């Protein structure tokens, strides 16, 4: 009797969580019909930060590209959205795609430059690139120069789907815009997580996971590390750019300082990933929830929550470097998004 083996990443926990994720997604889609506006706004915040965190995690957690300059893509994507709507009259929803494309275009020269550097130099180099982009954008008078600008009223009103949402839920146009932004954020976050999950279960994804675990060993089995870095850096820039465009489309106002904030779009994102657990898909989800509840819990104490966040990040990095999810997974062996292959016997 011959036995054949197949490698599979399927587990029971994975199947269950896959079903749970689908149910959650359906609930999230119909949520605006009964949820309050503030809940929708909170969820928008969570979903966009989650997207940024997933992409940073993809960069740092899998290919070791510890970038401190992701705000370049958030800000550039957001500014391109404003530029496209103000100067060329593009519908903001359509302009989101341009946010991604322009961020991707920015990522190409950035990568040529930054990939010459390694480790700490890479981190600082990406940060300086982000500063250069910020200072250049601040010279762009058509979108308000250094002080920034607001989305014009007619562009705001023309957003695809807003009228339909107004009628569907019987809400005002401002609430309808929030719902639209929320749905887009939901789609983006779901596509990001789903896409990364799918990618990690392909052959290329296996190469990526191998790189995460041991660069030298991965190279010796034929993984092209440079090519993986390029793919990951460009994909992360594309997604980060769309997220940036979406964040500022919902905000309605943009300025160079807010769009290129290193604290908000990189430091907080790094905290989210590390607190949750770097190098896993589950980590950023846990991290963003911790981040959000911390913010809610201490909303009345001003800057204290940032102090607590900083201390929590430091403590986790020192004492549980695999993050909350890593700590949990090591003890239970559970993976909600299983990417590890196991051998299965088929008779």
């Amino acid at each position, binding site marked *: 009797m011959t036995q054949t083996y197949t490698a599979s990443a399927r587990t029971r926990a994975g199947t269950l969580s896959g079903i749970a994720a689908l149910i959650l997604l359906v609930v999230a889609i119909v949520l605006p019909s009964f949820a309050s506006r503030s809940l929708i706004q909170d969820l928008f915040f969570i979903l966009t930060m989650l997207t940024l965190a997933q992409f940073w995690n993809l960069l*740092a957690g899998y290919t070791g590209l*510890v970038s*401190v300059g992701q705000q370049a893509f958030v800000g550039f994507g957001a500014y391109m959205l404003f530029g496209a709507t103000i100067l060329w009259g593009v519908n903001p929803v359509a302009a989101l795609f341009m946010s991604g494309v322009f961020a991707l275009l920015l990522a190409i020269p950035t990568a040529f*430059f930054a990939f*010459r*550097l390694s*480790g*700490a*130099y890479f*981190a*600082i*180099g990406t*940060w*300086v*690139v982000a*500063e*250069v982009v910020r*200072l*250049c954008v*601040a*010279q762009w008078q058509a979108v308000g120069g*250094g002080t920034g600008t607001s989305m014009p009223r007619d562009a705001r009103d023309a957003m695809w789907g807003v009228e339909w949402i107004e009628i569907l839920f019987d809400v005002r146009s401002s609430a309808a815009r929030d719902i639209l932004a929320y749905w887009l954020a939901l789609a983006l976050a779901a596509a990001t997580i789903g896409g990364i999950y799918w990618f990690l279960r392909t052959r290329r994804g296996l190469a990526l996971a191998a790189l995460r675990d041991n660069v030298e060993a991965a190279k010796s089995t034929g993984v092209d590390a440079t090519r993986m870095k390029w793919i990951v850096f460009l994909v992360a820039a594309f997604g980060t750019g769309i997220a940036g465009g979406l964040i500022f489309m919902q905000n309605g106002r943009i300025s160079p300082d807010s769009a290129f904030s*290193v*604290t908000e779009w990189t*430091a907080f994102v*790094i*905290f989210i990933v*590390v607190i949750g657990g*770097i190098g896993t898909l589950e980590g950023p989800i846990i991290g963003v929830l911790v981040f959000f509840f911390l913010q809610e819990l201490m909303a009345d104490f*001003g*800057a*204290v929550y*940032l*102090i607590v*966040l*900083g*201390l929590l*990040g*430091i403590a986790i*990095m*020192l004492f549980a*470097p695999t993050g909350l999810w890593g700590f949990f997974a090591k003890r239970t062996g559970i993976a909600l998004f299983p990417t590890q292959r196991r051998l299965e016997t088929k008779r």
Partner: protein
Amino acid sequence: MIWIETIVQGVLLGGLYALFAAGLSLVFGIMRLVNLAHGDLIVMGAYLILVVVSVSGLNPFFAALVAAPFMFTVGWILQRAVLNRTLGEDILPPLLVTFGLSVVIQNTLLEGFTADSQRLSMGPLETASVNVGPITMGTLPILTFGSAIVVILVLNWIFYRTAIGRAFRATSDDPVTASLMGIRPDRVFATAMGLALVVVTIAALYLGTRSNFDPYVGPARLIYAFEAVIIGGLGSLWGTLAGGIIIGVAQTLGAAINPEWQILAGHVAFLIVLLVRPRGLFPRAFD
């Protein structure tokens, strides 16, 4: 003539950046620690000097002398208790922990001192100037530049002429072998960080007297400091001074062409140097 004056102003500005960077260069050179809280530590030093001045009424220069031992202790404890645990092959732990420190320091200062901008007053010295031939130079910028030279001379003397300096160099080159020779790398690193924070205090003095500061100005200072260190090359203090001067001259030249290009010109100069020499101009140590 105006160009020469611009370049001289740039060189003097470079002295300030070299002061910001000297402490960073020291810890980066010895333990490869990317300290993202360095800028915030400078701002913290400036507030400390401010407190000493307002409590005792001392001149800021003497207040800095009072603040320096305190800052040394802060650095020593910080390194022993926290930062030593982050050192290793992976650069993420030091990066995240110092990012965390940066956020903690900024917001603690914000809670303690509000967001109002502050300044250390030097009296008439602030506006004094010296004429050298046809060029007018501010006394304070000259003093800053002189301090940068003295700081680097002293650090180099410690580095190459003393026992602790030998320990610095040995642990920088190879911590494992150094510890076989009876050196305790964790203590050496703590001393290095303490020393770096003494330099930070001097940098804070000039930060506070030459411009306004508030709890949030740290990261902008940090980025110039890092640029100076990287341009100069890992472990070379004179290289750091050269890096500071390159940034300073690029900034004043940029500002002379268009005031809005000042900071941009500095960053572009940094990117060009890094593109041509990815390891900086005068690297002493190798990675």
